[in-house]
């Protein structure tokens, strides 16, 4: 009896662990990172995609409007580098901010520091959204 159960488990495990590699499993998270919510939209999760797009973009935009700082990759300061890791999660929004030179003003008041946190967290939330798009693409989530 015990042996049969063990055999059944070992037969099931490889199938459960196997992740189907499809073009969508690469495209969805990549597109989702570049354009917030697009990873869901491309998989026809319209409501979720639009909500994610609105949330991440609004957070990033509010952060910029509050005079938040956008970190650069090569500042040499460890905390700045961590900030950059958060910022780069916003994908296209980060690239846009660099191209248009947003987030370069010096922080002179408390609310602007909130803006910096908004920008970093919008990037981190976008990474969560991109991972979710990947889970949908591989069938782990509906």
């Amino acid at each position, binding site marked *: 009896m015990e042996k049969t159960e063990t055999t059944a488990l070992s037969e099931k495990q490889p199938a459960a662990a196997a992740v189907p590699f499809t073009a969508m499993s690469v495209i969805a998270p990549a597109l989702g990172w570049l354009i917030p919510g697009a990873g869901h939209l491309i998989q026809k999760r319209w409501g979720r995609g639009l909500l994610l797009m609105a949330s*991440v973009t*609004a957070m990033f935009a509010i952060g910029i409007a*509050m005079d938040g700082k956008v970190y650069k990759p090569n500042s040499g300061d460890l905390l700045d580098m961590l900030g950059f890791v958060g910022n780069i999660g916003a994908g296209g929004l980060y690239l846009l901010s660099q191209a248009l030179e947003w987030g370069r*003003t010096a922080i002179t008041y408390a*609310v602007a520091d909130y803006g910096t946190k908004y920008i970093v967290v919008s990037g981190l939330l976008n990474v969560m*959204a991109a991972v979710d798009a990947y889970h949908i693409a591989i069938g782990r989530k509906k």
Partner: protein
Amino acid sequence: MILALQLSHFSAAVIFALFASIVFGITQRNTQREMLRYGAQCFGWFVIGMYLAGWLMRLLHH
């Protein structure tokens, strides 16, 4: 930026909680009902935590 958006600490924290809760709800749950429930729960905890932290800071300050 010349005209920076000036939010109070409270409104900045509530807006932050709102957007973060939406993303948490969508990404951390599977069904629509669960997403809505979890998102609302997260938002509630954010706001409760914010009030508690606010009072704690006030007590520590005085």
